[in-house]
């Protein structure tokens, strides 16, 4: 790694109780109340799930999209440690923190959605394992990755608690943890897409493809960078800190390079399978396909030029557009483009939405508490 002089991470400080954490707290309380009903009266009591749409937003948004939005840590760590881009090092900790929360909550969200959650230990019971199941792979990988991320993030707690010996010992094997922290998300983020391969012709040909693992992997990495752009802007605005534009501008360029690769792969696959024609019909699927692709193509209009990438507001919007595009890919494949043919309908209920909102609210509270009290964000130079 090139020798670089970065500001050391330091706690931001400030009050933990404010308008944001209070609002988020209320949303979490509402979620808790809804979940009590769910656990006493069944999934049907608070969701609009049915046998035509057995997976709703708790899976597609909280887990699929939630974990993709939590790819910042993986994407940035890969850039820094694998592609040796040491200059991005200050972005690693905050990105990793968001990932840690994103994944831990995605894991929690799965439990809430499981109809027979008390049997979940079977997932880790060798006599129940089904290595043919894509979901088995996803579950094992995500569980391991959550553990790996807590270890990756442990130095932050060691610093706060003054456990220097432990920190030094951990740093000796950190390269293995980092390698695992890169491999595991590559495995399960791609497999989250492979999940719909077994659904066969029930998934619309605009999304049903054998290359879906590659599409999910690429978008997960891309979303990872988009989330860092988004989050850095929000953290700077909320904590009144300067924005690390010298890092975000080139990071946005890396992201755009991958977006270009993604668009090429996406269209090459559609043409190769002869499915592109379906994008030009007057169907809901076609319209949603173009909404999805418009995000990946449109981002070049927002931050395509170097001048545009020096504008924090544009990076913020660019980040949001990519996050939306990645979210749409997942919603389109699992919900809009999914049809069992039985005339079933699904639109999430208010209570379903409130639980999803509550899950994200926990993330916001956690991020605020930890950045204010633990050394995560780079220390601000005393400003005038």
């Amino acid at each position, binding site marked *: *790694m090139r020798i670089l002089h970065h500001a*050391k991470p330091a706690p931001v400080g400030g009050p933990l109780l404010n308008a944001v954490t209070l609002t988020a707290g209320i949303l979490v309380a509402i979620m808790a109340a809804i979940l009590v009903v769910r*656990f*006493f*009266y*069944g*999934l049907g009591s608070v969701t609009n799930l*049915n*046998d*035509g749409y*057995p*997976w709703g937003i708790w899976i597609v948004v909280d887990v699929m999209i939630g974990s993709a939005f939590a790819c910042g840590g993986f994407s940035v760590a890969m850039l820094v*440690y*694998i*592609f*040796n*881009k*040491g200059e991005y090092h200050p972005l690693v900790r905050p990105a990793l923190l968001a990932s840690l929360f994103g994944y831990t909550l995605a894991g929690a969200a799965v439990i809430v*959605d*499981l*109809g*027979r*959650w008390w*049997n979940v230990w*079977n*997932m880790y019971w060798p006599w*129940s*394992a*089904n*290595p*043919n*199941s*894509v*979901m*088995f*792979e996803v*579950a094992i990988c995500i569980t391991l990755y959550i553990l790996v991320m807590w270890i990756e993030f442990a130095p932050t707690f060691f610093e706060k608690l003054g456990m220097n010996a432990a920190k030094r010992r951990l740093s000796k094997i*950190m*390269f293995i943890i*980092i*390698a*695992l922290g*890169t*491999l595991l998300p590559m*495995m399960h983020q791609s*497999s989250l897409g*492979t*999940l719909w*391969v*077994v*659904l*066969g*012709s029930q998934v619309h040909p605009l999304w049903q493809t*054998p290359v879906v*693992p590659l599409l999910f992997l690429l978008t997960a990495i891309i979303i990872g960078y988009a989330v860092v752009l988004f989050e850095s802007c929000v953290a700077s605005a909320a904590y009144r800190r300067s924005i690390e534009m010298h890092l975000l501008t080139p990071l946005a*360029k890396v992201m755009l*390079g991958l977006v270009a690769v993604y668009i090429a792969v996406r269209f090459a696959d559609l043409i190769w399978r002869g499915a592109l024609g379906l994008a030009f019909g007057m169907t809901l699927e076609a319209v949603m396909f173009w909404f999805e692709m418009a995000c990946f193509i449109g981002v070049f209009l927002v931050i395509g030029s170097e001048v545009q990438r020096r504008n924090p507001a544009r990076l913020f919007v660019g980040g949001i557009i990519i996050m939306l595009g990645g979210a749409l890919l997942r919603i389109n494949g699992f919900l809009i483009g999914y049809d*069992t*043919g*039985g005339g079933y309908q699904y639109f999430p209920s208010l209570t379903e939405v409130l639980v999803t909102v509550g899950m994200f609210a926990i993330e916001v509270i956690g991020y605020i508490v930890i950045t204010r009290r633990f050394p995560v964000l780079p220390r601000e130079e005393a400003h005038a």
Partner: protein
Amino acid sequence: MKSRREFLKRAVTGAAIVGAGATASGAVLARETHKVPPGGLGLLYDATLCVGCKACVAACKEANGNPPEFNTVDQLWDTPLDTSGYSFNIIKMYRNGTMETKDAEKNGYAFMKTSCLHCADPSCVSACPVSAMIKNPVTGIVTYNPDKCIGCRYCVAACPFGIPKYQYDDPLGRIGKCELCVHRHKDGHYSACAEVCPTGATLFGKTSDLLAEARRRLALKPGEITTYPRGRLGDAAAPNVNWRVEPDQTYEGAVGNYQQHIYGETEYGGTQVLKLSGVPFEKVGMPKLPPYSSAAMSETIQHTLYGGLIMPVAVLGALAWIAKRNVKPEAEEENES
């Protein structure tokens, strides 16, 4: 600029290596759709014999201890509109125009049984992460174990026939689907739906026997008189099962006006439940499916990438090697900064 070029070069090389590895091993490992086991048990449903009495629906409810489902105002009769977590077998009706002729597509009506087809290569079994849904290697019956099931409903999503269903109204909800009454086999009873069918429209037996019977019927001339068995066809031997002795229930009847198509013979790589119909199958709610199972494609991808953990371990080794060069242990970092 130079570093960016290098970055892209590395990224492309890495992707190419992984891609090439996946393609090479994929060509070797691609798995075929499984076939129906030789001793596979199933049903033959002949829509031209079905009179729509729904005795099979009632018998199925009783055999599986399922409660009635009400969809009419008076709530007097069990009236499921589709299979559900509490209804594993229903008879659906096709209606067209004046509904004058049975089994006619135009101005006619027809019946169709909806229940698990016990696929040769079931998606639900491939999807289930905890082996709660398994296919018996001898009888081929796809069974469900609620003590393993985590309620993820991947089987519900995966099945191309929309068969496994979940009980959303119950905090302890289970997946419900036909298991060919495997729990009654030890008492010498076979599938309740076939046992009670008054016309032999639903027959129980070995899939190979049922297929031969279906072919026999399709070879006959419509209107011709032939014999129809009822209940159980042939020996249908299953391990540790002695079927109850029943009187001969064979009867004579006229041959229906069949579509020359045995549904389930090739659909999705073959199913152990076969169907005959006078009306095209798509019109009576049976989906048009390719002659292979999506489970084969899904497992091919899964095992190409993760088979024997070869790829993950190789990639992990490469990543660890690179990371070791790029990450300095704590002490050095302290000195530098």
